């Protein structure tokens, strides 16, 4: 493999080497040249150091408020914010900031983790199943506010069912249930409605010994609020496009009702 003799062309190849754009033969030839040419090797090290420095610069923060705005664009014009040029950008920023501040205050400064930073594919699967259900004709496979209907239906289908209290008096009406398939396992999901928002509650059976300690973790996935906790035999995931405070309210009421039997 002949390397170019022109220094400018050689320079371009050095960048291409750092960028992983060279074929194996050219890479080999260039690496041999680098071993013999200290000034070329120094330039190669500079390029690599600069690339590492640029890559490690902080990225702009992808705030939940901003993500929610973009998700709303996708859901449709009725729920989307009004066409934005009519608003000054500072007003938008103020609105986004106030939403964020409210949400952070309401959640007691809980940590917000984005799925793109965590390899938590289960959370992503829960988010996408919730998103699909919002688009489907019906979010439930069995529609009933009666747990004596929902529980046997789930039991008959997949042999397990979580507590399914109707929380209508608390403002969270049980719409029904459906079966999700996540990681090749059928998993029961309950659907509650709060005002115009749906809350999907996914329950996965726990392994025997580790089930006792109730823990609550909060995060967001795919632009939705997500709360995860463990109670007794099930690990629960509650996901919704409603605000976090409402979702947390739902979770605490659900846990109370479930514990009361």
């Amino acid at each position, binding site marked *: 493999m002949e390397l170019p003799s022109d220094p400018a062309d050689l320079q371009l190849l050095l*960048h291409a080497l750092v960028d992983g754009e060279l074929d194996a033969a050219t890479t080999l030839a260039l690496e041999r040249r680098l071993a013999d040419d200290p000034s070329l090797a120094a330039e190669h090290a500079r390029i690599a150091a600069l690339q590492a420095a640029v890559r490690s610069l902080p*990225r702009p923060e992808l705030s939940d408020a901003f993500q929610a705005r973009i998700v709303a664009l996708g859901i449709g014009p009725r729920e989307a914010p009004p066409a934005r040029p009519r608003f000054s950008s500072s007003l938008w920023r103020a609105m986004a900031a106030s939403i964020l501040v409210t949400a952070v205050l309401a959640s007691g400064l809980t940590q917000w983790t984005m799925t793109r930073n965590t390899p938590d594919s289960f959370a992503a699967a829960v988010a996408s199943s919730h998103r699909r259900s919002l688009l489907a004709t019906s979010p439930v496979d069995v529609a009933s506010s009666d747990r004596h209907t929902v529980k046997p239906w789930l039991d008959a289908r997949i042999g397990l069912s979580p507590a399914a209290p109707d929380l209508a008096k608390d403002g969270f009406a049980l719409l029904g249930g459906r079966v999700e398939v996540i990681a090749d396992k059928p998993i029961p999901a309950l659907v509650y409605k709060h005002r115009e928002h749906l809350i999907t509650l996914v329950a996965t059976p726990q392994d025997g010994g580790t089930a006792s300690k109730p823990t609550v973790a909060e995060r967001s996935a*795919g*632009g939705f609020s997500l709360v995860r906790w463990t109670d007794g035999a099930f690990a629960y995931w509650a996901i919704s496009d409603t605000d976090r405070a409402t979702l947390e309210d739902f979770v605490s009421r659900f846990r109370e009702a479930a514990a009361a039997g």
Partner: protein
Amino acid sequence: MPGEADDVAVLTGKVSAERFSEVVLPHLSDALALARWLTGNADDAEDVVQEACLKAHKGLATYAGGNARAWLLTIVRNASYAWLARNHPRRIVAVGDLADLDAFAAKADTDAGTPEAALIAKADAAALESAITRLPHPFREVLVLRDVNGLGYREIAAMLHVPLGTVMSRLSRARGLLMAELGGTR
């Protein structure tokens, strides 16, 4: 401008909402990063990306599959320049100047005064950011698409409608300018 485009959006709403979330949402972070570097600040970047996502939503039907990230970033790039043209027209390098810039780029890479790799590695992030922001747009966009967004040379060439060699020489020039800047501040 809303009106008839919105009617189309209503008709195709259910289909496009799902596609939108698959095609656009995973690349929001990259979109925001590109807009941040092209507009020069993070606050404006959100406005630009929102505008771009609105365009992406309306144009979903024209997205033929393939590289969703490059497709979205192309829209973000155009939205960034449109935003700059409206708000800071003097910050954009006119197309006519490009030939001069490329000619300039070819001969200006001298090693004299470039710092050692170790010095670059511990360069102050703020100094590096300001050096990137001072790069002329044709160089800055190639650098950001490559090193921040992680696109390959061919993807960048296709996106900017320039030959592969132009991508390579602009990238080399952009990095050369940054190195000289970082060396000069020490």
